[in-house]
């Protein structure tokens, strides 16, 4: 394992930025979001980003086709990402969300743009030393301070960052910055292992205290389609896009055209099952006529349909919906109410 002293970080950013576009959690007007780093930008690892880093692979809107008519025939030109990038400081929960997005976008039919971005990107994950009060990644068998899918794993050890390459991409990146890295002493490496263990144990203890987890949840939700639960929950929902747009695993999108004169482009863009128009048909029929069906869809999709199909829950416990839903209609309440097995019982 390697390490880098904190005072060398500025150099590290510069070096990396030369190599590829460097996405960081940057603070602007008090809001932390992933954005390309520029000199002078304010890097903030203190809190997780408001918008999840999914937008780096699956942007809110993305043009994939340009068209032109007027000449003899329609001319089409496809647009593809070319840029290499490094996504630095992704939390383990968000990193796990990429597995979930992969199921959607990498299985047949593959989303070529997403696939290409996945190839172009190098993922540097930073372990969480101290899970936040709304974090519940451990409920989904994730570890706060370790991300299995990362190309490089880093830990903040106070004076320095521990740096562990974990894939060929990660090795390649490490080679570029080798001059800035030192070899970590065995006791320092051991400290990282301890950190992993204590945060995981701490989070698990917190989960026990919360009194719920996701064991058996899928079974519990089967047959709950017409349950009173949804009637009870939905009234307060404002039907906004906060929970879905801020959820790292939500992946619904729409396709739209933009055109002017004889040319234009076709793009995909985020959409949300919480919007009334999401299922509105041309005929005027809406199979999810009220917010009740929409709320039910959001939760059953994450906790029942997705796991039935792909074998894993479509929630990573990042807690964004817990923090940001203006009326506190978040997934933990559903898990609890729907009767995931209460731990310790």
């Amino acid at each position, binding site marked *: 394992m390697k390490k880098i002293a904190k005072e060398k970080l500025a150099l590290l950013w510069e070096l990396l930025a030369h190599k590829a576009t460097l996405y960081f959690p940057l603070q602007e*007007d008090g809001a932390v979001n992933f954005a390309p780093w520029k000199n002078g930008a304010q890097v903030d690892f203190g809190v997780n980003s408001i918008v999840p880093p999914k937008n780096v692979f699956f942007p809110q809107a993305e043009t994939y086709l340009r068209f032109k008519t007027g000449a003899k025939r329609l001319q089409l030109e496809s647009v593809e990402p070319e840029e290499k990038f490094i996504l630095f400081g992704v939390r383990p929960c968000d990193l796990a969300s990429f597995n979930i997005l992969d199921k959607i976008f990498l299985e047949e039919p593959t989303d070529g743009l997403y696939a290409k971005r996945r190839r172009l990107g190098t993922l540097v994950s930073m372990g969480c030393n101290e899970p936040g*009060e709304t974090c519940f990644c451990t409920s989904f068998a994730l570890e706060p301070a370790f991300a299995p899918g990362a190309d490089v794993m880093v830990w903040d050890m106070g004076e320095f960052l521990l740096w562990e390459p974990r894939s060929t991409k990660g090795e390649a990146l490490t080679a570029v910055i080798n001059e800035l890295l030192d070899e970590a002493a065995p006791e320092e490496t051991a400290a990282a292992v301890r950190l992993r263990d204590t945060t995981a144990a701490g989070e698990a203890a917190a989960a026990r205290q*919360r009194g719920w987890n996701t064991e058996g949840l899928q079974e519990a939700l089967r047959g709950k389609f017409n349950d009173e639960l949804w009637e009870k929950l939905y009234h307060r929902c404002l*039907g906004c896009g*906060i929970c879905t747009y801020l959820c790292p695993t939500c992946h619904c999108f729409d396709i739209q055209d933009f055109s002017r004169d004889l040319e234009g482009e076709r793009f995909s863009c985020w959409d949300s099952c919480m*919007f009334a128009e999401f299922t509105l048909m041309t005929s005027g029929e809406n199979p999810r006529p009220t917010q009740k069906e929409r709320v039910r869809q959001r939760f059953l999709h994450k906790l029942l349909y997705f796991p039935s199909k792909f074998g894993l829950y479509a929630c990573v416990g990042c807690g964004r919906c817990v923090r940001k839903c*203006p009326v506190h*209609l978040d997934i933990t309440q559903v898990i609890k109410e729907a009767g995931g097995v209460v731990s310790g019982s």
Partner: protein
Amino acid sequence: MKQLSEILKEVAFGSLSSGEAEMVIGWQKGPFWWQSFPAFITDPGGTGSLIWDPFSVSNLSKYLLKEVPEKKIALFLKGCDALGFNQMLRDGRVDREKVLLFGIPCDGLVDPARVEAAGLSKGLLQVKKEQEELIFYYKKGQRKAPARDFYYAKCLSCRYPNPVIYDQMLGEAVPCQPVERFADVSKLETTPLEERFSYWSRHFSRCIRCFACRNVCPACSCRECIFDLAEPRWLGKANELSETQFYHITRAYHVAGRCVDCGECARICPVGIPLAELNRKFIKDINELYGEYDAGADLDKEAPLLTFKTDDPDVSSGS
């Protein structure tokens, strides 16, 4: 004197058990200290779960657009909520006969972000208010701090803490000591044009177009919203600054003269866009150009954009 939270449960129980109302909208508590959210109760037995605490900030009257009762809905209104309710009434979107309003004098509610910023949130279990102080409860021990230091920005500039409309008031009127609400607007007005443009571009670029600011707004009560229309599609779904500008200009302009300055939009914006400054620019200009007008409060005055004077100031030709 009885605690307000107790009185609130009592009147909720009373209105349901007497059959006067078929539903009560109040607030309930979630597992976290900062989670208080709208609750919809139809069974008198359920009214015991209702609460009133420093986080009961959601405006309950907006739900009247969706919940259509046969009898009446009983709900609680704080000062700002009452203004919003009045505006919905004025816009013809609610039926006064179908509601039973319990007014709650409210001198301010607590912004969880300020508690966090003060470093008080770790291990925090509960926050209570006693007179002018907040008491923070932890597993071991408690701490006290002046309540006003933690209030939402919208509460600090609140001018109507005591509901202006109600059927029954549930407490003593509270004093009102608002800070000047146009200070930010005035400051922006004097910054150079280009600086102002980049200020707003920076903020608008963060907007994720979740429409929460619209959905929460008591002045946004159109049955069909222009932003949702597929044909004509005025607002596209691209991540394009000009579209976000279109959204923000149009949203603020559509509520101009009707925005009650309840501050809900700015409060719930997940990315912290200072929407109040947009709304207040219109309010300030309306006040300056057409005379003071408080939407939601000045019911005897004509709405400024639904009327005119022949000697109104002219639109300058922009030079």
